[in-house]
């Protein structure tokens, strides 16, 4: 069971997050301010942390910096009402952690925490497999069973990202940020859906078992359940 430390000063938000993560099988500890949060992080070494940026006593980014100085590599998801045009946030993202702007959908938070916990190990595999799906990163070829998939470069990139995170919920915002490198919400809201629609059309042919699933209101999952 994954243990998560939540440092958040707003009680209602905290309770909602604790309840939701609890339902999904996480063990959640909650700290109401920066100092307490830092103490708990040092004492219990959780698997992942959710840290609000603006906290009483010590602000969230300072807590993270203090932990990083102690060589604590725990993945962190930062919550903030502030936007992300900030050097410190840029630095944070470089470090592989994540940033979520308030207000957010709870499913987005869960998806991101799961993504942080199940960060793909840097495997040297050059051929990825999910069920009948096979992606050759060297040859840049994709096939489903015997069928060769003719993918455009962007579709290839998207499929690679999804195969590395198979059976994981990937939200539109995550895909935008990670696959298309978007740092903002595009005006056209169905941007991802259009791209995903094309990829699915190629991956899931007529009569095939569906691999790419649309999770209503949240995002997409690549899953093989024969």
């Amino acid at each position, binding site marked *: 069971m994954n243990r998560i430390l939540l440092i958040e000063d707003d009680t209602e938000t905290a309770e909602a997050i604790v309840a939701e993560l609890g339902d999904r099988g996480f063990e959640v500890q909650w700290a109401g301010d920066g100092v307490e949060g830092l103490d708990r992080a040092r004492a219990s070494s959780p698997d992942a942390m959710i840290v609000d940026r603006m906290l009483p006593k010590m602000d969230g980014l300072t807590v993270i910096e203090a932990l990083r100085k102690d060589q604590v590599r725990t993945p962190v998801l930062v919550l903030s009402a502030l936007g992300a*045009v900030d*050097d410190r946030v840029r630095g944070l993202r470089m470090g592989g952690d994540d940033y979520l702007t308030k*207000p957010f959908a709870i499913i987005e938070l869960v998806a991101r925490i799961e993504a942080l916990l199940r960060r793909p190990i840097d495997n040297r595999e050059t051929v990825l497999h999910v069920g009948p799906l096979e992606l050759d990163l060297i040859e840049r070829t994709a096939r489903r069973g015997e069928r060769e998939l003719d993918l455009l470069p962007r579709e290839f990139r998207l499929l690679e990202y999804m195969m590395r995170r198979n059976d994981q919920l990937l939200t539109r915002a995550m895909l935008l940020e990670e696959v298309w490198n978007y740092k*903002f*919400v*595009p*005006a056209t809201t*169905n*941007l991802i859906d259009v791209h995903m629609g094309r990829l699915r059309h190629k991956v899931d042919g007529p009569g095939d078992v569906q691999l790419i699933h649309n999770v209503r*209101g949240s995002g997409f999952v690549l899953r093989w359940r024969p």
Partner: protein
Amino acid sequence: MQHVRLIRSSTFLWAMAVAATLALFVVGLFAFIYWKLDDYLVARSDRMITTQIHFIAELPPARRVSAIADHLEQDSRGVQYAGLFDAAGNRLAGNIDRAPRELGLDGAVQSVRLDLIGKPSVRDLVVRAIGERLDGGDILVMGRNVDETREISSVVGQALALGLLPAFSLCLLAGAWLSFRAQRRVEEVNQRVQRIVAGELRERLPEGSGDDSFARLAAMVNGMLDEMETMINALAGVGNDIAHDLRTPLTRVRLALERGRTQAATLEELQDITDKAIVGIDQSLAIITALLRLTEIENSRRMAGFGEVALDEILREVCDVYEPIAEDKRIGLGVVIKRNTLVWGDRDLLFEAVANLADNAIKFTPSGGRVELALEAEGDTALVRVSDTGPGISEQEREAVLRRFYRSDTMRNTPGVGLGLSLVAAIVKLHGFRLVIGPAPGGRIEILARIGRTGRAVTRRSRTLVHADAE
């Protein structure tokens, strides 16, 4: 207090200094005139008596007495003196009692004291005189009163008093008046500024008539106040727009929830209603997010994210992202790179700007049309052009589209938050680039960027320009 302030005011002190200097100059001038005049008069009388003494000395001794008498008779003003004495010093003729001892008889003019007949030392009469010993041993003395110079000096003094004192007083008065006027205006400005500070944004500084520095300063400040008032009003307008744009989705949410609460019979129905409500709330949140994003960019003063940015990559990536969308709408989307260039900027923000332009172009171009992203470079300017075959932006709307939340009436029902172009404008402004909106028909928006690092210094000061035409 008022008087002390007046006297200590710099205007008044300057007036005092100027008046004093002026007085000094005038006194100097008058002294010079007096000195020169005096000199001239003395030299003139010296010449006269020398001529006279030579004239009389050259006469035969028998005619000298009568010549002296004639000479004295002709002098009605009584400024001429003459005396003829024998070797023993007895007076033979003239109005001089005795020859002054200090007078050298060498024919040189000098100032001496003369004793006159009948006027025994009325006053200490100092005159110019010349003496000469004649052939027969007689002594001839001629003199002339140069007291006229004193009269001249008194005239000069009077002139000085008449001219200088009024001038000096006038200077002081003018100084006092100017300083009083300046203080009154400062006081007036102060009062109005207090009112502006108190929130009376309509208040302006008195500009007055004329073109003095005060009026110019006031005009400048008033110009600034105009600008600020417009901005503040625009902000207030934005507030209204936000309220309006938020109300629409929130009203839908409220209605859906209300209806769902009473009408939903099954869990599925209730979930359906809740989903609708969430969509509405998400719309409201999207508006707020976009607005915060805009403010964030507009207020961003940091250039930390700046670096060399290859514009062609950005255009290709944007095209890559939007190609399927365009294809779905049966719109051709193409990239034309005439010359690749590097500019100094924030890659993510520039990507966002170009993506927004492309997004807009695709949204407003009818099916079967074409959208083109072009990169050109000329001199030190790079040009990113997003053009389409849509209706374009009409002349009247060109300013308005950059405003927050503006959506042209015909597009009211097109989904979108209406912040796209103002966001682009904010990004362009942050970079010190220029945004040019081309004439309709056909959409055409250009970003003019400075190539290389040179663009860095001019940022922020330069404003986003909206041109009448794109050329």
